[in-house]
């Protein structure tokens, strides 16, 4: 394995993806799967070779000398590894998902996207980073759209915000280049850290430009509304990738550039709130806000994919808070939650895709009772939501716990309160998903629904095992963080295979899991020795044997699912939840008005002369005013 492998894992998927554009759909999915195996294999052997890099130099007059460098940093490798593993699982899932009936033509684009992802995580210079970033943006746009008018609205919304971020990043990259004279990311970090004391305005401008790009990609406030459209409208199997991996690019960016800058800045250089530099405190508040908004919106959503999209937003908020604390604990927590979110949200979206695959429904209240016919899907979803809610034996708890420890360390109790609110709200919407899709009445329409096909089931089972493993043995994941933390200029954290040490206490997740198992054992014993049980059809009990169908009430109406939390809706009416979205829409409308105004000045034949005169006046005004 030489360093030539680095460009290979970036370029090969892109080229193969281009080639695949002219191949049949089903074959493409196989190629996609097989290449992902190769890529994952290559990526997992990279680590053992230690630091390696591939450099490519060229010169343009416009850009000066450019040293493009792909290299493996601890952070990059970590993201690369988890993303390639997850991609492998999702591609296995997609193999069965895209059968003859459901097949979409997105495999080539997806493969290009995988190449772009690898590029982002390997880039050591801004040019490569930017190129990969843009490649990722537009390929994902077409995947989200996948030829549906309704989906495309979501896609273009996503792309507009993302492109806005990209443009901000372009500005940031140039400002940084003019300051450092180099395209290298690491020298940019060092220089910006120095500038925070000497040229504060400049450094903050650069930082905020990059932050805009990363926030837009990670759907943090004020860019939090695109996932509910994009995740919901994307192809079902792609939603898992979108939520599991794509939303983490921004997190990666923040960990790559923003957090190290503040880590390298000596204490006291910049005013701090609660022990956190104020820009980072603002980031923390924005992230907390994101998770509160995401939670509240999720509670009142009827579309299952939208619900989970809002849940993704909420979880990214957690990650943002974690890394905004800027401590090693917070940094590690952010990474840990990234991994966990990848697993549990991957699992959840995979199970939703399986449900959609079998039933074709997306509105939750039309479903119900699918647990009884799709047990593997149900268990994936169940473990997913347990992890998402942060309940102990599963992985989500460990990372949430670490995030809270990071907050307690800095005594950021108000941010923590917001997160607790989001965390409690998570139970509401997660249970709602569980109940409305999988529990309650099984509609007769779905009585003959089968379990998901084998490869889909297999990848869901693997995801379940991963979630459990990371939950019971957190050290499997946290053990990898110390290299990354040291590389970012932070102290290592204390962790073993079984336990983690936070600021206020340490926990032993394995112990928690085992006492839980013990308690369940006790109850199971009670359950077994209790009287015998009889299996009765649902209708035979609470409708007293009457069939509601006789009164023209179908079981799907008897299934309490629609507008689940209607009684408490009024409680949230005071929150200005849609205000940002309304702002964007107003901006869009303003632009349309402006466009109409301009075209009406100019396209109306009678105003030709006037436009000329107006132009002359405009020149005079600008010339004289400036």
């Amino acid at each position, binding site marked *: 394995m030489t360093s030539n492998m680095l460009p290979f894992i970036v370029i090969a998927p892109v080229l193969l993806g281009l080639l695949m554009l002219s191949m049949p759909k089903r074959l493409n999915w196989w190629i996609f799967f097989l290449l992902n195996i190769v890529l994952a294999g290559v990526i997992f052997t990279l680590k053992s070779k230690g630091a390696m890099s591939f450099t490519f130099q060229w010169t343009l007059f416009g850009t000066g000398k450019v040293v493009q460098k792909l290299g493996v940093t601890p952070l990059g490798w970590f993201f690369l590894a988890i993303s390639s593993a997850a991609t492998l699982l999702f591609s296995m899932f997609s193999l069965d998902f895209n059968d003859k009936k459901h097949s979409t033509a997105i495999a080539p684009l997806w493969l290009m996207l995988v190449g772009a992802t690898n590029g982002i995580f390997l880039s050591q210079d801004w040019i490569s980073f930017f190129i990969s970033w843009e490649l990722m943006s537009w390929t994902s746009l077409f995947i989200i759209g996948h030829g549906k008018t309704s989906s495309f609205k979501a896609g273009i919304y996503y792309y507009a915000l993302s492109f806005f971020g990209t443009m901000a990043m372009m500005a940031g990259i140039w400002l940084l280049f003019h300051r450092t004279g180099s395209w290298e990311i690491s020298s940019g970090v060092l220089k910006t850290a120095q500038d925070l004391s000497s040229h504060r305005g400049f450094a903050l401008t650069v930082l905020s430009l990059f932050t805009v790009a990363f926030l837009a990609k990670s759907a943090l406030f004020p860019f939090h509304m695109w996932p509910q459209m994009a995740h919901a409208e994307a192809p079902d199997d792609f939603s898992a990738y979108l939520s599991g991996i794509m939303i983490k690019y921004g997190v990666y960016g923040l960990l790559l550039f923003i957090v190290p800058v503040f880590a390298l800045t000596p204490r006291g250089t910049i005013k701090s709130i609660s022990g956190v530099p104020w820009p980072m405190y603002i980031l923390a508040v924005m992230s907390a806000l994101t998770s509160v908004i995401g939670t509240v919106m999720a509670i009142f959503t009827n579309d299952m994919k939208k619900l989970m999209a809002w849940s993704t937003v909420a979880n990214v908020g957690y990650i943002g808070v974690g890394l905004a604390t800027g401590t090693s604990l917070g940094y590690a927590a952010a990474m840990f939650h990234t991994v966990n979110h990848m697993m549990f949200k991957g699992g959840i979206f995979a199970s939703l895709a399986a449900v959609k695959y079998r039933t074709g429904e997306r509105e939750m209240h039309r479903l119900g009772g699918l647990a009884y016919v799709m047990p593997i899907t149900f268990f994936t979803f169940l473990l997913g939501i347990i992890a998402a809610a942060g309940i*102990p034996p599963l992985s989500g708890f460990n990372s949430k716990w670490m995030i809270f420890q990071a907050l307690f360390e800095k005594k950021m109790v108000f941010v923590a309160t917001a997160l607790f609110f989001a965390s409690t709200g998570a139970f509401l919407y997660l249970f709602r998903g569980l109940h409305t899709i999988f529990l309650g009445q099984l509609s007769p329409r779905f009585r003959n629904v089968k379990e998901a096909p084998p490869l889909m089931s297999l990848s869901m089972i693997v995801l379940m095992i991963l979630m459990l493993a990371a939950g019971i043995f957190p050290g499997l994941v946290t053990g990898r963080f110390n290299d990354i933390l040291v590389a970012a200029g932070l102290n290592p954290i204390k962790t073993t295979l079984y336990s983690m040490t936070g600021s206020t206490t340490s926990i032993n997740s394995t112990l928690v899991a085992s006492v839980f198992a013990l*308690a369940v054992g006790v109850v199971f014993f009670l*359950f077994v020795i209790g009287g015998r049980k*009889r299996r009765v059809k649902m209708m035979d009990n609470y409708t007293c044997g009457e069939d509601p169908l006789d009164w023209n009430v179908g079981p799907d109406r008897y299934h309490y699912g629609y507008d689940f939390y209607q009684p408490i809706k009024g409680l949230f009416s005071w929150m200005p939840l849609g205000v940002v979205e309304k702002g964007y829409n107003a901006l869009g409308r303003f632009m349309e008005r402006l466009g109409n105004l301009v075209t009406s000045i100019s396209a109306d034949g009678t105003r030709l002369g006037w436009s000329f005169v107006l132009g002359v006046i405009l020149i005079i005004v600008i010339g004289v005013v400036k």
Partner: protein
Amino acid sequence: MNAYALLGIKLIGVSFGSMAVGLLFMGLGRKVTARIQRRMGPPFYQSFIDVIKCFTKTSITHNFVMDLGIIMALGGLIATAFFIPFANFSILGSSSVVIVLYLMSIGYLGMAMGVSASGNPNATIGISRALALMMGYEIPFVMVIMAMLITYNSSDLLTYAVAQSNGIGSWHIWKYPLGFIAVEIAFQAMVGEAPYDHMIAPAEIASGPMVELSGKYLGIGFLLHAVQLYVETGLIVNLFLGGASSWYVMLVKMFAVYFTTLSINAVMARYRIEQGIRHLWIWAGSFGLLQLIYTRIWG
């Protein structure tokens, strides 16, 4: 004997002990309520009889999710009970309050899953109310806990309990008076007593979650409530009432907490669900917030 096996046996003891304590409280509670309402009430051991009777009956199930959920529910709560220090002693050596808060949730989740798998809309409505109410009481509760947490820089319940062991003057009631009020209000909702008994609401939704449970399922349901009482009263005692130096003091304090709750329950009517949450947010929430602000800035 192997240390792990010994610990296991102890934990099994704790699990049955917590059930027993909870059932005893329930029995006494029924007596107390009856006396407030000028009735005789059942004997204090009635709950034990009920549970045993339930376990001997034939029960109805609809599907495997129901079994799973109900087992998970009680298992989760018992696991939580392991983490509650009893008489200033924590059997697992540590009892992080964050774990307690989150582990308790698995009990709720299991319960919710089990009963909503029964397919009865009443049960689901009950669950949806319970979860909604959770948003009401969890936030004030957490805020108060965080106030303690930043004072002691520890999230161990045992630390809090030990810190209050110097007589009644060192109790957290005095140190965190606003917090105590907040938690008391939240506690009323936590155990689901009036005015926050939306989840059960016998007259509206036929006891909500319990509606479809029978036989041993109902028995486990009772046990669930029992362990919940144990955990939650234990939590309050450890947080505010100075823990305890001996097991009977602990029990007395725990019952005292429950007694207060019952007394309020006996004389209150039920809020509507959104009124209840609003009430919790406004009163418990503001007290908790004030406590947190006070502690963060001057504490």
